[in-house]
């Protein structure tokens, strides 16, 4: 509770939380407000926004409802962002804990692999992966995860290195716990908070990467994505700029919201720590 109060004391955090709540509401409400296929043709093509109140944000080049696409696109963006971040944190935490706790050769090997992944720009990695395997939602999530797990792995390893010398770890060793059990039951939970602090950055980056992939035509073509909407709108940028602007603004707000909320979390935990 204390933590929540700290969290809501900063205006950025409140703004971020509001945006995220709105986004989550959009994503959850999409199938209720816009049942059926959001890519169905709903009206005349290239209808500008605010002309017809049954299609408030207008229609795209094929006459699909931009508002419906925007809502369903929020689902894809959030799903990809959360799934990729969860997968990256999981892999990163496991790899980091193993490396930090085991030390020696295992540490060397795992960290060199991490280095190898880190030296390749994560977007290029995602691009190459999707173009080889073929675009679908799962593949896109995997591709983003591929470039995002290294950060959490390094942070987790650093934390584990300091924790594994603590007394309670030595105690666990003495009572004969299996090293893996110590690593994942005693060490990892304590190493987790700073790793989780990375989540906001990863979610934001994942949403942007997904949008960029869709923009390049490497998103799942059977789903509405904001990046895909921007990409389609780009061909008519001069005549119907709203087709790119509407999803573009949604994208900016989302990333901003995730980032602000993440900052809020970090700030409030920092306050809590300094208080204790």
């Amino acid at each position, binding site marked *: 509770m204390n933590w929540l109060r700290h969290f809501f004391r900063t205006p950025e955090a409140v703004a971020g939380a509001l945006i995220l709540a709105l986004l989550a509401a959009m994503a959850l409400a999409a199938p209720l407000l816009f049942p059926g296929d959001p890519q169905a043709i709903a009206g005349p093509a290239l209808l500008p926004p605010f002309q017809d109140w049954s299609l408030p944000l207008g229609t795209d080049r*094929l006459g699909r409802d931009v508002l419906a696409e925007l809502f369903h696109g929020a689902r894809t963006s959030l799903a990809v962002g959360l799934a990729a971040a969860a997968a990256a944190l999981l892999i990163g935490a496991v790899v980091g804990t193993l490396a930090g706790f085991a030390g020696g050769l295992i540490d060397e090997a795992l960290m060199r692999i991490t280095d190898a992944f880190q030296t390749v720009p994560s977007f290029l990695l995602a691009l190459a992966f999707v173009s080889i395997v073929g675009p679908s939602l799962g593949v896109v999530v995997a591709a983003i995860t591929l470039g995002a797990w290294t950060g959490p792995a390094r942070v987790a390893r650093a934390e584990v290195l300091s924790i594994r010398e603590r007394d309670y770890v030595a105690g666990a060793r003495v009572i004969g716990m299996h090293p893996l059990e110590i690593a994942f039951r005693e060490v990892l939970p304590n190493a987790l908070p700073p790793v989780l602090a990375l989540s906001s950055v990863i979610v934001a980056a994942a949403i942007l990467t997904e949008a960029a992939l869709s923009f390049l035509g490497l998103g799942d073509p059977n789903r509405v994505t904001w990046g895909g909407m921007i990409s389609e709108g780009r061909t008519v940028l001069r005549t119907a700029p709203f087709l790119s602007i509407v999803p573009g603004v949604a994208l900016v707000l989302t990333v901003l919201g995730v980032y602000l909320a993440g900052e809020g979390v970090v700030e409030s935990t920092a306050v809590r720590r300094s208080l204790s």
Partner: protein
Amino acid sequence: MSEFTISRRGLLAGSALLLASTALPTIGFAQTPKKGGRLVLAADSEPRNLNPAIVASNGVFFISSKIVETLAEASFDGKDGLQPRLALSWEGAADGLSVTFRLRDGVKWHDGKPFTAADVAFSALQIWKPLQNLGRTVFKDLEAVDTPDDLTAIFKFAKPTPFQLIRNALPALSSVVPKHLYEVGKIEENPANNAPVGTGPFKFAEYKAGQYYRLTKNDAYWGKDEPYLDEIVYQVLPDRTSAAAALEAEEIQLAAFSAVPLADLDRISKVPGLKVITKGYEGLTYQLVVEINHRRKELADLKVRQAIAHAIDKDFVVKTVFLGYAATATGPVPKNDPQFYTADVPTYPFDVAKANALLDEAGYKRADDGKRFALKLLPAPYFNETKQFGDYLRQALAAIGIDAEIVNNDSAAHIKAVYTDHAFDLAVGPPVFRGDPAISTTILVQSGIPDGVPFSNQGGYKNAELDALIVKASETLDTSARTELYKEFQKKVAADLPLINVAEWSFISVARDRVGNIANNPRWAVSNWADTYLAG
């Protein structure tokens, strides 16, 4: 064809210009050709092999047709739709076993050597027949080329070959390259493939990857006073939105091949100093086609194919995907073809209820979730329009209970998936009609084509009756009998639907008013531009 030539927009733009011309007496259409100047235009792709004798495709012609000439070019008013280039006349023997070309005198290659019948014989036998993508079918029975003198080339065929087909193939398939440069070494690896040497009005000057191609005037060109331009520069602008901006900024003077997106044309036609031209592509008609994999048992059923044909609203496609710059199709020959087209074929008006009834009849009832069956749809990635039509088709199929999953690939992967691996159920393809069904159209239906041949029947369709008809037409020498056979072919294809023809479209040019003699033949963008000029 009216859909391609006259649009309300064009008329409006034209009348606006007329008004403007009264205000500014120096601007007008009746300009006299002026010598000199550099024409800068947009190029959206960078072909590496620029030899049109090997790669007969529009991307290559766009640049190399100014350098390497063909025996004849397409024409709006010439006899049989042709005008002479390197050949002055052509005559087919009654038995279909030979064609005699009389060649132009006094023509020189860019390196100064004289052009002779030996160059034609070499190009035909060593390149068109064995190596060229399209020549392989048309010249398959070419046995020898006799050259009794330097200005006569007599093509000898092993089997009777219709003269009409050879004639129709001349503009695209008969690029002549110099024998003296190609007879040494492997033809495919000849350096002249990247820096072509020809007889055309322009010489190849330089190519900077990712930047531009530059051609300079050939002072020794055979055409009197031609060419008018000093230089042609192809500015590489792969991004389609940048071509329109470059035109408006006067960085380029011409954007051909619809480099300006269709959706931008309405706006750009109102920009003073720019004109939108829909003519000059009549000989390069693209067809929007749904390719069908007949190995799928549902799609092997004619009723299902008919249902799909009824589910597609062709008028919507023309109006929305092509913004009116296209025509609906009835069959495998486009409406704007003057020789072969017939409207007398079975048609499939847009009728969702009928489509649903046909599917019910075929035994594919809707399941509880409203879906009958699922299939994979691969839209070709080459054009925005093919991709958009893919999105539309998915919706149209959803309306009749077919759940289509779109699979996007890049060009290479798409060609492999459809034409080699057959990993598709439906594909959206843009085949080109090249003036004669035997050049690149019958191949879309014919059976027995080896795996991996792109833009051919790779859907496993086999119809003995149609195969026999195709063979018969390829051996029929009499022009009117041959034409009748192709009309029969159109009827049978429309009835049995080995593929579904949806629309036919061509390209649009946007140019500054200063550019003269645009679109004066049916393959203008890929012709030699000897008479194109820049007014002052």
